[in-house]
């Protein structure tokens, strides 16, 4: 396996249609996500970006009235086939939400939550996983002396990096980030973006950025969604420098949205 951006397809979305109570929010979408790339999926509000992200690890199953047609293949295997274990799927394809949500327990217990659910009890192993994950999320130095304090007392930016560490502890293959910096200050945002650039070497990352600039800064490729349609996808630099579709250029230059 190559460490740089490869051509290998990690997730393949085929003819995806998505409905909430028969209202179509994603229309006949085809998109490949490559291994070890950062793909940003951007677009104005209500364009289906969050839904697309949540469909990738079937978090949409939790929403009443949600219905999906088409295929999503992870390493060539349909994530909706009956022999898929949904807990395993969500450990492989893990998600950080828009609102930083630490669980009401200690920093350590938050990061160890996922591994413990999957049955890891060994204290030494857990400690190792927690430290490694916090290091990768660029949070270790700030919390190493108070791992057993409540996570609720961390600042917003720290909480969001904790959420990132929490999914890294699952040793996922794909990381989904839904506007992970929308409520954060510029310093916290740049810390998270910095960790993403390192994480790319090990993981495949799909991010819904909270603004167009972030898409430009962090991603290798960018996909523009508008009202459930995939308008354009390509290398980020190209999409930004000379968009093929007028709607894309209008959105990027701020003419609407």
């Amino acid at each position, binding site marked *: 396996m190559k460490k740089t951006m490869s051509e290998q397809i990690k997730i393949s979305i085929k003819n995806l249609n998505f409905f909430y109570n028969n209202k179509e929010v994603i229309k006949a979408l085809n998109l490949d996500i490559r291994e070890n790339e950062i793909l940003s999926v951007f677009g104005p509000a209500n364009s289906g970006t969050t839904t697309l992200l949540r469909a990738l*690890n079937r*978090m949409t199953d*939790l929403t*009443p009235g949600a219905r999906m047609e088409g295929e999503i293949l992870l390493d060539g295997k349909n994530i909706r086939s009956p022999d898929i274990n949904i*807990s*395993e799927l*969500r*450990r492989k394809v*893990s*998600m950080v*939400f828009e*609102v930083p*949500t630490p*669980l*009401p*327990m*200690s920093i350590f217990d938050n990061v160890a*939550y*996922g591994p413990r*659910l*999957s049955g890891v009890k060994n204290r030494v192993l857990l400690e190792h996983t927690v430290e490694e994950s916090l290091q990768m999320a660029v949070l270790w130095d700030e919390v190493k002396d108070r791992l057993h304090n*409540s996570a*609720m*007392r961390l600042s917003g930016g720290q909480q969001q990096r904790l*959420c990132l560490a*929490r*999914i890294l502890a*699952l040793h996922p293959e794909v990381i989904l980030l839904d506007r992970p910096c929308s409520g954060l200050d510029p310093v916290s945002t740049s810390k998270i973006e910095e960790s993403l650039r390192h994480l790319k070497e090990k993981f495949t990352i799909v991010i819904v950025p909270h603004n167009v600039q972030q898409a430009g800064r962090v991603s290798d490729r960018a996909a523009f969604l508008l009202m459930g349609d995939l308008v354009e996808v390509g290398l980020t630099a190209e999409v930004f420098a000379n968009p093929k579709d007028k709607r894309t250029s209008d959105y990027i230059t701020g003419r609407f949205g």
Partner: protein
Amino acid sequence: MGIRVNPRTTQRIAKAVIWSAAVLVLLLLFTIIIYILSKGIPHITWQFLTEIPSDMGKSGGILSAIVGTLAVTIVAIVVATPLGVGTAFYLTEYTRESGVTKIIRFSAESLAGIPSIVYGLFGFIFFVTYLKLGWSILSGGLTLAVMILPTIIRTSEEAIRTVPPMYREVSFSLGGTKWQTMTKVLIPSALPGISTGIILGIGRCVAETAAIILTAGSALQMPTSLFSPARTLAVHFYILASEGISLDNAYATAAILIILILLINIGANLLINRFVAKRR
């Protein structure tokens, strides 16, 4: 055009009204407690606490009634807590709003409003006679369990609903199953609220008389098993006072009852606070 009152004056009047309401309630509460304690405590002796009643309660102590109260309450709580909390979790987590949930909720709300004597009658017919459990701690405890079930269901349901929905999403997104999410996140987060319901339930159990007389009886001797009849402190107090057996001992019993409830509340609060402090 109405009269314009200076907002600051309105503010002052509101403050005075609210303050006096609070002070009045506190006064009332303390008057009752101090009155009973001052009348009762002088008659509490070591003997009173450690002996069983003799001469219908005119002399001797109340040890059997203390034991009876604790036993009946423990049976009720042990039975009602898992049933009530389980129902609350079913209603909030395991089903979507439907006809069934509406019926369960409506039944629970109706049950909460029924006078306790009706529960007593039901317990007498069902547990004492039909199931042949006789007048016993078990019959009394089960009857009280049915009685406090609605309270526990409703308070637990409220408590579970106030757990932020994102906690569920996070737990599921980290590969948690429904059961893991419930035991590791929802129950701990809802515990303070659930305990409030249980404490309210304990209070009602300890204070109950009518339902107890019909189902556990009013025996004076020391209960020896779950199948023994028993008298609780509240029943003992009621009989001592209403039949004019001994007003002094009645007040002493009431004082013990109040102290017992205070101890249970303080103990429960300490436990909850210790648990919650770790998670904040």
